[in-house]
């Protein structure tokens, strides 16, 4: 519903509550991200919410960033990164809160698109700002998600919404498209390494496919203000979870 993966919630639940080995839990959650993305996208794409060209352009950055994640892992301690990300998430949530509502759509002549917003009953036309900077930061977002296996969407949404000036609904739909690509690549690697276990993945994936049919319908109908508040809450929950993980509690 929000264009974020949800892996950060699923992994601790599976590994702590059900005693699933951590790598298998991560593999399961990645498959669930794919299921969410594919299912939600059938609804988003049909409504023109997803900016296909923008998504594809930024996917270049996130996939390359994800491949480079291994390099970063050697250079920086993962726990230091987790603390840093928790801080960034809190900052982003605060920024979104300060803004009160959605960005004002601007026609910039770059990757322009439009969609029909059922909440306001209006056609929204928008263009993309600061494409270059957004691309560079997406490299970072891909790198982070490649490194920690989480947080891709949590960073892509603020980059696109706050920095590139894309309305929140189009941002969420486009982010949702992009996380499917990163997750599929990761899942293929996990499958090859033998961390997939149908015993856990199949029930989880089927459950998610049902749930993911509801999310987009809700996201499309809610006002941008309400959506923004939900998103800020999720970011703060992420920040708390990430801090706990870094501290070794989870």
């Amino acid at each position, binding site marked *: 519903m929000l264009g974020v993966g949800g892996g950060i919630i699923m992994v601790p639940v599976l590994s702590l509550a059900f005693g699933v080995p951590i790598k298998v839990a991560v593999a399961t959650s990645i498959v669930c991200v794919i299921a969410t993305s*594919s299912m939600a996208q*059938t609804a988003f794409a*049909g409504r023109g919410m997803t900016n296909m060209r923008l998504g594809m352009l930024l996917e270049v950055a996130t996939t*390359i960033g994800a491949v480079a994640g291994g390099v970063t892992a050697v250079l920086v301690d993962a726990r230091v990164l987790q603390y840093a990300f928790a801080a960034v998430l809190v900052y982003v949530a605060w920024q979104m809160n300060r803004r009160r509502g959605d960005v004002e759509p601007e026609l910039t002549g770059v990757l322009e698109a439009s969609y*029909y917003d059922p909440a306001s009953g209006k056609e929204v036309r928008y263009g993309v700002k600061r494409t270059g900077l957004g691309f560079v930061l997406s490299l970072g977002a891909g790198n982070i998600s490649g490194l920690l296996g989480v947080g891709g969407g949590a960073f892509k949404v603020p980059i696109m919404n706050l920095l590139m000036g894309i309305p929140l609904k189009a941002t969420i739909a486009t982010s949702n498209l992009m996380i499917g*690509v990163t997750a599929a690549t990761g899942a293929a690697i996990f499958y090859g390494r033998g961390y*997939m*276990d*149908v015993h856990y993945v199949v029930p989880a994936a089927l459950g998610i496919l049902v749930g993911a049919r509801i999310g987009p319908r809700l996201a499309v109908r809610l006002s941008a203000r309400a959506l923004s508040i939900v998103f800020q809450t999720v970011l703060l929950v992420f920040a708390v979870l990430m801090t706990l993980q870094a501290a070794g509690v989870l």
Partner: protein
Amino acid sequence: MSAAAGKGAPEARHTMSRIERTVRLVLMAGITVSVALLVFGLVLVVARGGGIPHGTVPLGSMASELRALQPAAYLSLGLIVLIGTPFVRVAGSLVAFAEEHDGRYVLITATVLLVMCLSVVLGKV
């Protein structure tokens, strides 16, 4: 999978572009095939008893296991289809951009596909 037949038909307000139609079609087909395989696998689990198996079936022995109606093979294949769907989506986008004669985005999409495949190959090592 009647995502298209949602109530209120907001789709009617939006005319899908070629690329949107392609992406939507690929994803719906992927989900449908995957769910069909997973459900069939679960039916086999119930028929044979013994609960949902662990692990996955390696690609090498997939064909023979499928012929032997092993539930694990159908569950694994359903999973592979689910994981493969975004790959096919990107490949499908490439075709759609080519049909629109958008050379720049053909190139961009090809890069994404290449990096995806590259990281899968690198990840196995």
